[in-house]
């Protein structure tokens, strides 16, 4: 497949892997030799190199995020070239590597968001208290990126143009088998009620963390739960309202122009909100470190309010798409 977007995706993932490999070798040196009290030339060199490495990583993670968007958008636009594919689902179903690529990319998005927040926090402590933790975390992220590069490579190189794939209609249907089918089988009433409860909980947790300036983990847990519930709700009910079709459960078709790209307005705030609430849990434990306590006290409320802002944006968009929908699901609701 010599499609330009595919070439770009492969190129970007290889570049990001290389950047992280470079950063990882540096991380080893940091873990071994870092000593902030020392004024030795080695220490000075290490300190200067942190500027390079964190710049590399900021770019790497930014490009990682953009490549997630490009990956989904590209899967959408490739769907025209395969028999049976109507949207990204069909393209992801082409071979066993499609879905893992997507999931790894999403995981990397969250990991990079957390890392960037930690990096920002650490750079505000005059003795860089988190530096070892930060670079150890980076070593954990490396296998994710390398795996993503390999899996994505397989996904794109093993695309058989003549293969007949199955699309959302079969995967996300209550009659089929597997997780996707079970999710699609959840009744709208149940999923909407759960969504509302999770919304209330996550907003409450966010307000609490923002006002008290501690216990960020609470927001992280609630945020993660709200994320999962939101995805389930999109598949099991919100998508139905957007398509105005009682049995079409696809989470990707909402990204299409035909539905006003409403999917992007749902997913982007949801992902940002989740990333922010996850990082809240990684920020608040450092409150007790002298050099960080003030920064944590300033940052945690900002992160929490931002997370809430994006969550509320997501909930409002979801509510709006249900509200304007001409689909009435009398028999399902009552």
């Amino acid at each position, binding site marked *: 497949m010599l499609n330009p977007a595919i070439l770009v995706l492969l190129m970007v993932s290889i570049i990001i892997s290389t950047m992280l490999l470079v950063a990882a070798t540096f991380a080893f040196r940091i873990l071994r030799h870092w000593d*902030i009290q020392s*004024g*030795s*030339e080695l220490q*000075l060199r290490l*300190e200067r190199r942190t500027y390079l490495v964190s710049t590399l990583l900021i770019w790497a993670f930014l490009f990682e995020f953009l490549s997630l968007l490009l990956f989904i958008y590209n899967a959408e636009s490739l769907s025209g070239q395969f028999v049976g594919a109507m949207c990204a689902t069909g393209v992801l179903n082409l071979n066993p590597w499609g879905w893992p690529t997507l999931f790894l990319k999403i995981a990397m998005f969250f990991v990079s968001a957390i890392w960037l927040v930690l990096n920002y926090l650490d*750079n505000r402590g*005059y*003795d*860089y208290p988190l530096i070892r933790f930060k670079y150890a975390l980076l070593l954990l992220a490396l296998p994710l990126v390398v795996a993503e590069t390999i899996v994505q490579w397989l996904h794109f190189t093993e695309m058989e143009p003549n293969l007949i794939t199955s699309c959302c209609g079969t995967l996300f249907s209550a009659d089929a088998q597997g997780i996707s089918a079970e999710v699609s089988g959840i009744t709208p009433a149940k999923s909407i009620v759960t969504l509302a409860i999770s919304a209330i909980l996550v907003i409450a947790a966010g307000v609490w963390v923002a006002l008290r300036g501690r216990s960020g983990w609470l927001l992280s847990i609630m945020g993660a739960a709200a994320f999962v519930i939101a995805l389930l709700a999109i598949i099991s009910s919100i998508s139905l309202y957007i398509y105005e079709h009682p049995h079409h459960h696809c989470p990707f078709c909402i990204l299409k122009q035909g539905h006003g790209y409403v999917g992007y307005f749902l997913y982007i705030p949801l992902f940002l909100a989740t990333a922010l609430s996850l990082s809240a849990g990684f920020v608040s434990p450092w409150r007790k470190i002298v050099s960080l306590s003030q920064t944590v006290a300033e940052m945690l409320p900002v992160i929490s309010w931002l997370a809430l802002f994006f969550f509320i944006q997501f909930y409002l968009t979801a509510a709006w798409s249900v509200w304007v929908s001409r689909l009435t699901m009398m028999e399902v609701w009552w």
Partner: protein
Amino acid sequence: MLIELTDVRKAFNQGKPNEFWAIQGITTQFEVNRISCLKGASGSGKTTLMSMIGCLSRPTSGRIRLQDRTISSLPERFLTQVRRHTFGFIFQRFNLIPGLSVVENIMLPAYPLGLKASSLRNRADRLLEQFLLADKSDNPVEWLSGGEAQRVAICRALINDPQILIADEPTANLDSRLSREFMALLDELSKSGKTVLISSHDPVVFDSPVVDRVVELEDGVMVAGET
């Protein structure tokens, strides 16, 4: 006391055959509101010592305290923050950026502070007036005479209203009349509450009546000037 040095040492090319200790254990203090002078031949380590006091570099070992804060173990990011609020620098060769106007050169140290543009400009204009440069404000710095360039460098050192002024061989490029004028300026600044630290091997400077204390360095050790 304002600045306290405890057994400060600085090495270059550490671990290599050409390892060289420029400063070999200096312990002293510098007081507020005084003009102190570091005296010594070139290579005696006075510039290295000044750059460590001024937060431009970190000692290899030893401790430097600025008021009640240890600055010798701060990473560069925080060292810079301390530096730009506490120190103003006047360099031997003035080090103005050619191509920029006088006023732009003066405002340069304040850019990373993100002040409001109008208040920054006001501050620069006041300094220019104080140092009789108001009519030169928009000229490129290449047009200035030696004495004017020196005064622009002083304005630049003062833009962030630092407590301490550090001057490295300030009179090296000035004739003796301008040098004496410069010392008079420093005296004025000292009287207005600034602490001044000069490094020099120019007798006009270290024999000047305005200098309160002379510290003499030789091969990285203090040989005279204990208080």
